[in-house]
């Protein structure tokens, strides 16, 4: 039953913002999750290759600089191509250009195939708790014993 959690972490595209990445790394590691941190300026290819190579449970994509809408599209398909179509896929940061309505941004990324989408003000402890549950659910897809917690979408993961 005691199974580890391993995630791929990185900042996608031409994005150099590393501070949040370091903090996510720290928070995930402190919570006992194994982190493979690819750092900044990571291509989709690098993310998926690492995920497959490391047998990771999830990919956590950051996009901070605003090109997320361009950089993040197609990631789920690429995972599928490499046989990891089922992997937990999160995206977070300042995902689009400008101060946009969050519901629209969230919908945009859910549409792209991300399982959950996070704004900068996300509460990391809650996010990590949810991450564990999401991974658990994928592991025993039939069981779904605590899936009720997820029916309402992800607002409780967000500080605001």
């Amino acid at each position, binding site marked *: 039953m005691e199974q580890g959690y391993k995630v791929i972490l990185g900042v996608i595209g031409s994005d150099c913002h590393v*501070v949040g990445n370091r903090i996510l790394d720290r928070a995930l590691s402190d919570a006992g999750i194994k982190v493979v941190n690819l750092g900044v300026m990571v291509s989709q290819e690098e993310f998926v290759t690492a995920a497959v190579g490391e047998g990771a449970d999830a990919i956590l994509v950051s996009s901070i600089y605003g*090109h997320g809408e361009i950089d993040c599209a197609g990631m789920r398909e690429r995972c599928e191509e490499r046989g990891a179509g089922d992997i937990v896929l999160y995206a977070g940061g300042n995902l689009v250009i400008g101060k946009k309505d969050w519901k629209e941004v969230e919908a945009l990324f859910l549409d792209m195939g991300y399982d959950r989408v996070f704004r*900068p003000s996300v509460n990391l402890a809650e996010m990590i708790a949810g991450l564990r549950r999401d991974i658990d659910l994928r592991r025993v897809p039939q069981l779904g014993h605590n899936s009720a917690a997820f029916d309402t979408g992800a607002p409780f993961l967000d500080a605001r």
Partner: protein
Amino acid sequence: MTPEIANTRLSDDAFAAERRGVLQSWPTGAAVDFGAGVARQQSLPESKRFSAALAQAHAEGRTLLQPRAGVALLREHTALMNGLSPHCDLLPTTVDAYTRLNRYEDAQTGIDRSRAVGTSLLNGFPAVNHGVDGCATLVDAVDKPIQVRHGTPDARLLAEITLSAGFSSYEGGGISYNIPYAKTVPLQDSIRHWQYCDRLVGRYEEHGIRINREPFGPLTGTLVPPFVSHVVAIVEGLLALEQGVRCLTLGYGQAGNMVQDIAAMRSLRKLAHHYFQDAGYDDYALSTVFHQWMGGFPEDEAQATAVICLGALAARQARVTKIIVKTPHEASGVPTLEANIAGLRATRQMVNMIADQARPDSADIAEEAEIIEAEVHAVMRRIYRLGRGDVAQGIVLAFEQGVMDVPFAPAQANAGSLIPVRDNRGAVRIFDPGNVPLPKDVLAFHRDKIGERAASEGREASFDMVVDDVRAISASKLIGRPAA
């Protein structure tokens, strides 16, 4: 291994040869002609010359305001500039992140998709793609001096295009546009590419056209100790002067503690003159720029405005020449015109209210300035030693060995062993110097200051404390104290 770089002026031949390659690296390079660029610059009215505006502000003791802004399309960008112009003194043109990495095809995709959806999908203005004509149209359409602001390790083509189109100031440098902005670019490459940019500016200078050059002061904007950014500013200043640049604006990003911020600006001017004159230069114009808080902002707009106001206050109290102004949208995303105007108006109001008030001076400020100076001297000494007198070689080796070390930098060229943390008054101190050769007494000073905080919080200083500090301003504090 000795880096293949030296702080010597690029020869005309070497420059010319290199230039051909640069201009061929993307189709819009073909339109660049140096003579035409000089002619165009000569034709600009004084009111559009960056160097003139800075010189006048310096002479009158005024503080100029400049926003950041850039969108994908020319027409929208022009409208944005003209919307900002009444509220600021100097115009920017912030370049998008693809262009910064010379990914002009991606930039083109961004332009095309932006056109299609009717809103900018790029985080800046792709100046290379818009080319000399596009940029010249922009310069013609605005009524203030306008500068290129970016974050480009190899900014040679961008410089050729924008300067020949009439931009009269160019931000960046081989260190400050690599360490915080890139991941795998070797430092000697970016320095070499910036020698090209500086040489280009030097050539304009030789043709009677003064282009302002501004090393990027704040680096990663995250707990950067003043000496770290000062060393970068001074070294980039020296590199620029060597290539013939004569109008320099050195910068610093607000750290948050007012005593330290004022001391930092004061020591920056003093140290720069010291090193520039030691190196034999005396015919340059020096001005300063203060960046309002460059770390994570609070999401709430009123709180963000308070952060902006504290920056405006410290900047004016330090009598800087220019302030780079943030906006209440900072935490959320590229600001709208309105948000940008709000930041400028708040800043202007604050600057105006305190403009004529006494310039703060105190024993604390003097002490803080002395610490910074001791730190800069110690590191500069080692840089010169490492480079055997050559500052370009020295700085490359210094980064290699962690003698220079920027906190929270993404670049592999950076050691990342220096760890900063705030003290009990919020000043940025050195928790772990890594390999940076700071004097013993200075380190003891930092240790004591951190010790005060640790005692007052009843916890050991640690990386957790650093993380708390990084997130503090967003959480409405300067210092990341444990929850009460």
